């Protein structure tokens, strides 16, 4: 495309017509008008611009202008005096003009001027800000991110009223450029983090990036890693907490979630509730989550391996009950375990996709038919049903959906290893998974830090210390600004000595 605009409106209009395929595309509106003694052309995308806003702030002021301007003067007059919209900017090239148009801005081209003017009078249909659906809390704010990038940035600015909050606008995709915002707190987030993340986002060489999930997979350190390397959240308060801890947050236009990087495994076990409650309760909840994670990953595998290979480890009464219940089952315990986990995964997947109205029927089918009836029919033993249900419950206790999914995949591996090689198989597979996870990195930072390797950190990793003792940011923050509080945090309660 032509790198700069011509001074001739007709040639510029032909340029735009070619770029926007105006002869085929009926969604682009072209309004020609005479203003400032010149011919002008106003372009906008139908539905992206408020008609009344465009009329009030752009078209009417231009038509009212009686004075004549030419070339540079005309652009100067439009940007400085005539247009009443708050955001007006000059655009030197047709490529940028097309980009601005596609982002919902009005583009005005004036005859004799070699620059266009973009005016922000965007107004489009969008979902209003609603409560979080995947990260619900009992105590705490209920707002969640929504699709438009601007609204999400507004939420961040409102919750973090400081000029240190930097929101860098970037685009990703070579053909379809989607807006991305890289947010961080100046001085708290290390420059290296910002530089690396920006370079990863901008270096993505692909025609289009349609969702934040794809962007996530493009910028992560290791595509073959078993666990997520970014924290994804739909809660602005959580995004703010990441920013305050020295992490960078990526927002994607059209996605109601944000990504935070770098991160560690421990972030995936944190939930917003932890900080809103007293430190004892928060710690307790985290321990319960860890137990849930261990149950989710190991329980089916350990149960199957013990019953098949090491039955002597079980108390005699329990072993007798298990053998009795299994006496009518026709398939092996390993097959039974795999079958039950597969059925559980199926119920889980169906439950996610099922329309709300069919929810009650679905509950009936899954509990009655697949549960009770399967036991009665001698297809599965009640013990294994309890084990699978417990492990499923454990996976639901994990606050991060990706982590919970990874654990559900991992439990299949452990189950197979336990069923084929007994406890040695469980231990070997556990070691393999642990070492694989320990070797992972998120934006170059070790995945299990600050526990391994040891790093300076705030006492808010698994157990939470009282708030007044949480004097540090995470080790991911810039070391020069790692201290959150200087001096005593609680300046009352100690009597002065006379």
């Amino acid at each position, binding site marked *: 495309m032509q790198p700069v605009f011509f001074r001739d409106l007709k040639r510029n209009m032909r340029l735009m017509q070619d770029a926007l395929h105006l002869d085929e595309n009926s969604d682009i509106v072209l309004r020609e008008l005479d203003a400032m003694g010149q011919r002008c052309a106003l372009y906008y995308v139908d539905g992206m611009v408020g008609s009344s806003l465009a009329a009030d702030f752009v078209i009417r002021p231009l038509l009212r202008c009686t004075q004549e301007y030419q070339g540079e003067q005309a652009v100067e007059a439009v940007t400085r005096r005539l247009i009443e919209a708050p955001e007006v900017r000059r655009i030197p090239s047709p490529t940028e003009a097309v980009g601005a148009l596609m982002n919902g801005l009005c583009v005005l081209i004036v005859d004799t001027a070699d620059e266009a003017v973009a005016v922000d009078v965007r107004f489009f249909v969008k979902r209003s800000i609603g409560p979080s659906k995947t990260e619900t809390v009992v105590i705490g704010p209920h707002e969640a991110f929504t699709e438009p990038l601007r609204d999400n940035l507004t939420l961040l600015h409102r919750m973090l009223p400081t000029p240190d909050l930097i929101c860098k606008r970037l685009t990703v995709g070579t053909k379809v450029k989607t807006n991305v915002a890289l947010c961080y707190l100046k001085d708290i987030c*290390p420059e290296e983090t910002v530089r690396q993340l920006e370079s990863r986002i901008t270096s993505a060489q692909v025609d289009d990036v349609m969702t934040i999930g794809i962007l996530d997979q493009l910028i992560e350190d290791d595509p073959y890693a078993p666990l997520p390397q970014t924290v994804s959240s739909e809660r602005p308060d959580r995004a703010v907490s990441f920013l305050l801890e020295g992490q960078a947050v990526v927002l994607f236009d059209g996605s109601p979630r944000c990504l935070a990087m770098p991160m560690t495994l421990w972030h995936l076990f944190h939930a917003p509730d932890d900080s809103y409650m007293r430190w004892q309760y928060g710690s307790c909840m985290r321990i319960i989550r860890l137990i849930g994670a261990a149950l989710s990953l190991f329980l089916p595998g350990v149960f199957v391996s013990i019953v098949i*290979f*090491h039955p*002597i*480890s*079980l*108390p005699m009464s329990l072993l007798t009950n298990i053998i009795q219940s299994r006496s009518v089952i026709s398939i092996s315990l390993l097959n039974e375990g795999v079958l039950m986990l597969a059925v559980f995964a199926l119920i889980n997947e169906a439950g996610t996709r099922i329309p709300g109205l069919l929810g009650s029927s679905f509950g009936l089918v899954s509990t009655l038919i697949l549960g009770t009836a399967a036991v009665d029919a001698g297809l599965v033993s009640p013990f294994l049903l309890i084990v699978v249900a417990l492990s499923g419950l454990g996976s639901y206790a994990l606050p991060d959906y990706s982590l919970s999914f990874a654990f559900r995949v991992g439990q299949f591996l452990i189950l197979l290893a336990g069923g084929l*090689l*007994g*406890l*040695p*198989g469980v*231990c*070997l*597979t556990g*070691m*393999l998974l*642990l*070492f*694989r*996870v*320990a*070797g*992972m990195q998120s934006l170059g930072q*070790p*995945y*299990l*830090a600050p*526990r*391994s*390797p*040891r*790093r*300076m*950190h*705030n*006492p808010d990793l698994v157990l939470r*210390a009282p708030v007044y*003792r949480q*004097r*540090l940011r995470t080790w991911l923050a*810039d*070391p*020069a600004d*790692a*201290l959150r509080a200087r001096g005593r945090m609680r300046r009352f309660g100690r009597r002065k000595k006379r």
Partner: protein
Amino acid sequence: MLKRAMQTRTAVHDEQAAQRQRKQAYGSALRLTAVVQTAAQLVLWVTFYGYDRAAQAVWQSALLLALPAAGIVCLWYAGGTQKTAGLLLLPCLLLDAAFLLYALCGFIDGLIPEYPYAAGAVCVAAVCWLTLLLSRREGVANGTNVLKYFLLILFLLGAVFLRASSRADRLWPILGQGLPNTALTALSGTGAVWGAALLFVLPDQPKPSVKAAALWTALPWAIGAVWALWYGFLHPWAPGDDLRVAERLMGLARHAADVVNYELAGLMWLVLLPVSLTCCAMSGEILLSRACPRAPRALSASLLLLPALLAVCLLPRQLPQWLKLLLPWRGAWAAAAGAAALMLKRREAAR
């Protein structure tokens, strides 16, 4: 400034200091793999050979007292970075790997007699090899660092819950053989302590701080001594070569009143042995890739595992006897490696 926050490990004021701390943390995690490996060797030595007391040749044992220490001192002065010296340590690592694999396969064979002996060995070696390939060095070091607490808990559970009252006369089977014999048996175990030399070879920084190195070096000795003491309390004493590997390994927990404790002791071996074997293979991979940077990773990862696997599968009956003779000599070999490293360094300095 930051020292006011009690939770900090060290004070950090700028990016350089943070970078330094990160390197130290990685070096420390890497050294921990050598500590775990050494501790496992000592504990295995006590379990397999110290248990039968005074089976070693006297002159070997006497010779081996000073050699590991000499090797470690030499490596300390050489900086531990000499490529050739690193390669000289490979036979010791190979013996370690064979010993660990033999113990682990024997244990698995005892737990699951349904499968052939070689199947367990192949599975274990394959998983360790895969772990090395997938998790890289950082993964093994950091993973072991996380597991150390778990291992410690299992180690204590496996031994403390044997529920034997600690009566001094139960030490008699050891002392009853006479103090010289007992001492010489303990000395022959010093071959296992060659692994302390790895503390000076493994990290990138050639000379770790004196305090940290001394502490880490002492740790495996303490674990070995504690383990030997626990064996001393065993009742009834049951020495003999006729015991199977699994029976020997579960010797302590055999007298546990609770079946759960028995299983926990078994779990300790099931965690300790594969982790030590992986650490051992990682050390070999590091030494080889340092000497030959172009060697493919898959090959250097299998450098120790493959010969150990072959030895365990092809010589299942002879291997215990051979190991009994060869293992104490690791100290001597490590000392030679240290001396060679020192010589090479001096020669380079002279040029």
